[in-house]
């Protein structure tokens, strides 16, 4: 247990930039852009008397007061989405970090031969691989969620403070939003993310442990080449191979599942299909956990664990130092 703790800590020593600074800086840049946008809007509005939605800005408060219950709910949902948008941007950056982290995790130290130092210590190869998985899909997402929540709250305050200059009570708006619901959605989604990302993490780490050189090329070329062949057979009409299924359920899952929220795809499509108004309910934990009821995520997780077992084997026996 102690060994595992120090192994994970080592990963953060090495990848401080990607795991900690990348989300922090993205959050700060996101806030700065919003502040710049708001200032631009205010200045232009003041200079040219541009009105928002055909209303004089003093009217916003009055308009808000006159909304019915359904409409105020919509305002709250819009604020929630504004809060989530920061997490969205940070998640995209984070997904790239995790993708390249996994690709390099069992390859970089073979290339620079520092693996010989790690292998001179009494550490089981399974612990090494496990520590890297934990760093990528558990600890790093926790940092991302913390950054996302803090930026989200800052965003919310930014908007309400701006609107309060236009006569809208800050507290009215804040009570319309559901920051705690957004937070529980983000935090609660971490275990779903862990399960969802396993096939991609497993595949990338397997390539990382196996490739003699250029793990990126192998990791991408193999699934894409298979997909192209299947699509080609499809085109010829000679085989009853479903290329669409392959691209979304195999190629997509082994390459793109590190992007958070992929599991929302199916549930979201169904919900929005039933009623487009449901967009505000996407950010509820139940839609995340609905994915756990589908076999897809579990089959992917099992496949991911199998590939990680392969990565452990290659880590133990790959002999090219």
């Amino acid at each position, binding site marked *: 247990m102690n060994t595992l703790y120090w192994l994970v800590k080592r990963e953060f*020593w*090495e990848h401080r930039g990607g795991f900690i600074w990348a989300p922090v800086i993205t959050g700060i840049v996101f806030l700065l852009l919003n502040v710049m946008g708001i200032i631009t809007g205010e200045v232009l509005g003041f200079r040219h008397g541009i009105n928002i939605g055909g209303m004089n800005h003093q009217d916003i408060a009055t308009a808000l007061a006159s909304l019915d219950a359904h409409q105020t709910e919509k305002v709250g949902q819009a604020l929630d989405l504004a809060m989530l948008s920061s997490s969205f941007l940070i998640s995209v950056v984070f997904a790239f970090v995790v993708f390249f982290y996994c690709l390099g995790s069992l390859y970089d130290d073979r290339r620079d*031969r520092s693996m010989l130092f790690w292998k001179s210590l*009494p550490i089981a190869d399974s612990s090494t691989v496990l520590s890297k998985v934990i760093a990528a899909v558990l600890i790093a997402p926790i940092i991302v969620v913390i950054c996302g929540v803090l930026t989200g709250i800052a965003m919310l305050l930014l908007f309400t403070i701006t609107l309060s200059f236009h006569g809208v009570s800050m507290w009215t708006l804040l009570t319309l939003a559901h920051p705690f619901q957004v937070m529980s959605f983000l935090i609660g989604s971490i275990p779903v993310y862990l399960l969802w990302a396993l096939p991609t993490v497993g595949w990338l780490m397997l390539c990382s442990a196996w490739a003699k050189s250029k793990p990126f090329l192998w990791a991408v070329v193999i699934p894409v080449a298979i997909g192209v062949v299947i699509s080609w057979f499809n085109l010829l009409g000679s085989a009853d191979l479903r290329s669409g299924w392959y691209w979304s359920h195999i190629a997509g899952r082994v390459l793109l599942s590190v992007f958070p929220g992929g599991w929302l795809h199916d549930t979201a499509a169904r919900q929005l299909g039933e009623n487009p108004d449901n967009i505000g309910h996407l950010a509820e934990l139940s839609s995340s956990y609905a994915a756990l009821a589908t076999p897809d995520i579990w089959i992917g997780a099992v496949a991911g664990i199998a590939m990680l077992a392969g990565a452990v084997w290659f880590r133990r*026996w790959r002999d090219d130092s």
Partner: protein
Amino acid sequence: MNAVVTASGLSKRYKNTLALDNVSFQIPPGRIVGLIGPNGAGKTTALKAILGLTDFQGQLNVLGLDPRSQRDKLMEEVCFIADVAVLPRWIRVREAIDFVANIHPRFNRAKCEAFLARTKLTPDQRVKQMSKGMIVQLHLALVMAIDAKLLVLDEPTLGLDILYRKQFYQNLLEDYFDENKTIIVTTHQVEEIEHILTDLMFIRDGKIVLNTDMEAMGERFAEVLVNGDMAATARQLKPLDERQVFGKSIFLFDGVDQAQLKALGEIRRPSVSDLFVATMKGTYA
């Protein structure tokens, strides 16, 4: 006492070359063994087999364990420095010490810090800011603070200047080595380690061609400085090697009676490097 390493019928084949060819040897505890051979002779492969870094055919027992199946346990008792500068470039001195201290059950932090106090290294320094010599100092400090039974060194001083090289082996002898420890070392700088070795193993084309302790080597091999008029007589005794210096000939003999050699001229104990060159003649031809 039981042998530290026992190998019997050890073979390892890479695609089309035989790196180890049915090798058998034993290394008792408390020895410093020099494993010496030309490039590509199989030294590193042998060490990798001992360290459980590669698969092989045959029997190999290291400290009572099988390096293939019990590697994790074995590494608590075995340390190695494989090549210079394999420490990760991003790590800081402080982090390296923290990590090893918490991972290795036999690491003595105070000892490691005492070694480092004698160097110019500072806790916040990163490996990438260090010279090759400093990296080796750090690595050696980490390794010497581990109370291991077997230390394996594979070209530990390659590319270092003479000050670092001398200091490296001096530290090992003075502060690390004792009768409970065993060191296996490979290097091309034979002259520098010859006086610290207790045993010598020559390896060539995957086979061990000489396995002797240093005392026995002095008895078995002799170098004789022969005047020109006696050279023909000397040649009849089938010397391993002959070279000319200042009009005299130096012959290297294997297993020829010392009394017989005295008649030819002055007898010396051959240096390991001369013996090595004579033994490996024609390796690259």
